[in-house]
């Protein structure tokens, strides 16, 4: 009952935000799918500066990062939002995995501890979002339970979602597989690294925010 009440309040608040055309847009997804690369690309395109550090080691982003007042324009329309880049959501974190990619034991343990806190923060922030871009790696299996849980939760909270299949520049990328896994959502294939298909992505932001 309390949950239903909370959802109704959230919906009312979201509608208020929508009228202002200034929303809180979250980037969610598993680790190492390119959320921060996409956040950087958005910030470069519209603010002329980067947002966060990226690396090949999972859980590079371990704290919520916020960039305020991003204004995107397309066909005479304008959309203003605060961009929230979140740590990757995972069900397991093993410090030994970080050691395998070259971190010392103490660094690996510290990173693992920060990463667990990052996942908790990302989940706690879900309720604050007005719209969410779920970023998935187009070269990986889309049927992982983390993807299904994130998208299912956003659906239960009535938060508008656009799914992005990133890394389409790679040969193994299969956007159709993501579309088959989540047929009720719009899925946009992009390469955040090379800026491919970002116009379609920006167009989808207008739809998700309207």
């Amino acid at each position, binding site marked *: 009952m309390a*949950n239903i009440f909370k959802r109704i309040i959230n919906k009312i608040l979201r509608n208020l935000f929508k009228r202002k055309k200034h929303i809180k847009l979250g980037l969610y997804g598993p680790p190492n799918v390119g959320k921060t690369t996409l956040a950087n690309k958005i910030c470069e395109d519209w603010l002329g500066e980067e947002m966060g550090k990226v690396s090949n080691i999972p859980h590079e982003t371990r704290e919520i990062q916020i960039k305020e007042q991003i204004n995107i324009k397309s066909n005479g329309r304008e959309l203003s939002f605060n961009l929230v880049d979140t740590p990757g*959501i*995972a*069900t*397991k*974190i*093993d*410090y030994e995995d970080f050691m395998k990619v070259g971190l010392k034991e103490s660094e690996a*343990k510290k990173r*693992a501890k920060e990463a*667990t*806190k990052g*996942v*908790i923060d990302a*989940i*706690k922030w*879900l309720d604050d979002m007005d719209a969410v871009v779920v970023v998935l790696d187009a070269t990986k*299996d889309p*049927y*992982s*339970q*983390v993807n*299904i*849980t994130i998208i*299912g*939760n956003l*659906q*239960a909270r009535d938060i508008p979602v656009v799914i992005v299949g990133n890394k389409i520049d790679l040969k193994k990328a299969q956007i159709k597989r993501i579309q088959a896994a989540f047929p009720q959502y719009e899925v946009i294939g992009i390469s955040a690294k090379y800026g491919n298909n970002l116009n379609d992505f920006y167009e989808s932001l207008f739809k998700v925010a309207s």
Partner: protein
Amino acid sequence: MLTLQFIPYTEIENLGSARRVKKILDVVKQDKIVLLEGRLKKEEETDLIEITMEEINNKFKGIELAVIDPQTKNVPFMGKIKRSFINMLLGDRQGLTIIGPASIVKDIKKDPHKIELLTKESIKKKGKK
């Protein structure tokens, strides 16, 4: 040796969300793979991830999780309504939830037609062949 523990829905149906999640995690932390009849609520699945993260330490590395849902694609509209109504009254008893400790279960591969549970031992054996 792998130990599977089946938890019927009746064992969790009267528990609140926090106690359901705790019950499952308690079993998983004993290095057992839980086969739960039905599925948790969507909010409980995120609670499970959140509490798992809080409990991670040098020994407990987290969980692998998968839900097998019965196909509803070809179910007629009235059938879906009936299912939603039953779920609302009795909880979501359809399907099966598999939760294992990450130290034992390496991966659970899932597509709409099959599910594969890969343990660390089976991966080592594959590597030896």
